């Protein structure tokens, strides 16, 4: 099963197996990882699953929708060039090993 490395704000690394087809948000939330909320169940409606994606993986991600783009403008922690909503990133073999940094607050 492909792996995702979630790095929390304190710098702790959590390596989790996330099945293909699941989103990075689901992977974190279902395993009880703090730092990602996903209060809209992953429908790209709330911006509480903000993460910073390791640059090496940015090009492999699906394109950002207009809604995601607008939501990222209103995140609780600063938006950076690597910001994405983790509910919009579905796991594939291609993304195996992806590293995402979690922001200070959601």
């Amino acid at each position, binding site marked *: 099963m492909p792996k995702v490395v979630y790095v929390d704000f304190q710098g702790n690394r959590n390596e989790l197996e996330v*099945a293909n*087809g*699941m989103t990075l948000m*689901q992977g974190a*939330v*279902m*395993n*009880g990882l703090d730092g990602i909320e996903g*209060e*809209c*169940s*992953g*429908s*790209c*409606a*709330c*911006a509480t699953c903000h993460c910073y994606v390791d640059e090496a993986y940015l090009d492999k991600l699906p394109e950002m929708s207009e*809604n995601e783009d*607008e*939501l990222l*403008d*209103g995140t609780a922690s600063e938006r950076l060039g690597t910001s994405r909503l983790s509910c919009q990133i579905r796991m594939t073999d291609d993304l195996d090993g992806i590293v995402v940094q979690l922001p200070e607050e959601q």
Partner: protein
Amino acid sequence: MTGVVIIGGGHAGFQCIDSLRKGGYTGPITLIDADPHLPYQRPPLSKGYLLEGAAPDTLLFRTATYYSEQSVELHLGVAATAIDRDNRSVTLSNGVRLSYDQLVLAPGASIRPLKVPDEIAGQVHYIKTLGDIDRISAQLSNAQDLVVVGGGFIGLEFAATACKLGKKVSVLVRGTGLMNQNVTPELSQFMLEQHRAHGADIQLNTSIETVSRLDDGSFEILTTDGRTLSCDMLVAGIGVTPDTRLAEAAGLECDDGIIVDAQCRTSDPVIYAAGDAVSFAHPLADRPIRIESVQNAVDQAKVIAATICGEQAEYDSVPWFWSDQYEFKLQMAGLHAGYDRVVQRGATESGKFTLFLYRGDKLIAVHTVNKPADHMAARKLLAAGVSPSFAEAADESLKLNGLLKR
């Protein structure tokens, strides 16, 4: 020490577990749910779940490991049948008796059944549980013509899903418009046009007069306005009623819901209640209300957990809600009852717009279509009690977050 017993594994029940442990509660936690699955999220059932063909596991709040790690005892697939307040215990359908120090009722709401003859009743589909959607899914591939009864969120979300799956869908709506109780006439009309443009045959001011089942298993429906429809599947989403049975039988105060105070405490101080089944005085409402939403369930559960952990907490969150229909994301923030003015930002034709609802010059609710960022900002405005002027609300060049900071 017998700990906290929670009845109901929906958003309220699950959140209560998580917030209790995060809040430092170390006593025993026991969850009872009549549904046999590990606690899961229901909102996607009428939305993306069928379309995406997702695995049931993707709906889980947490994997099984979480419950063992957090020492949560699960009683799944069994119902709570009685509460004995004198002895502080709950009896389950399998005869098990569980004692509690604190009891949390999160029973949710019961589907309002369609009034049809007994021989048809068992064939009508509803959308509440994973089991319901599995049954729908199993039949859907062989069905072409569907009749959906109900013009509320659930019925419309399912109608949109079925249309996207290529089904021929008729929707019978008793009222004069779609989602009448929950959105403005402008938004209702906009969505009516979208549903029709996507091929849904929406019939307003009508309902089922009679329905019969033909030899080939299909249904023949005569509507109250004299139309005849035939369909392979009949799906109803005509609302719910708060599940107050256990609470009432235990003598807890109920009136269209289990009555709770600002700490979500019932008339028994060691019994709390949260979610769809609860009636309460919200600071933004002028009479007791009941809110059927994820937000309400989650935020009430957080208040209960905090209270049990000995913190000062009060439920006063700004209500919010969302619905997905076709490519449209509707989001509602605040309580709009009693609004007397609508200010619109963005053109209706663009399919992306925001409606600011005012009572006098006070902003009381904001409804958005495909403007999630406006929705998130609106929640902050409403929570802070900030009312933009009508001109500011209408001005697309002004960022809503900017209005908050002044």
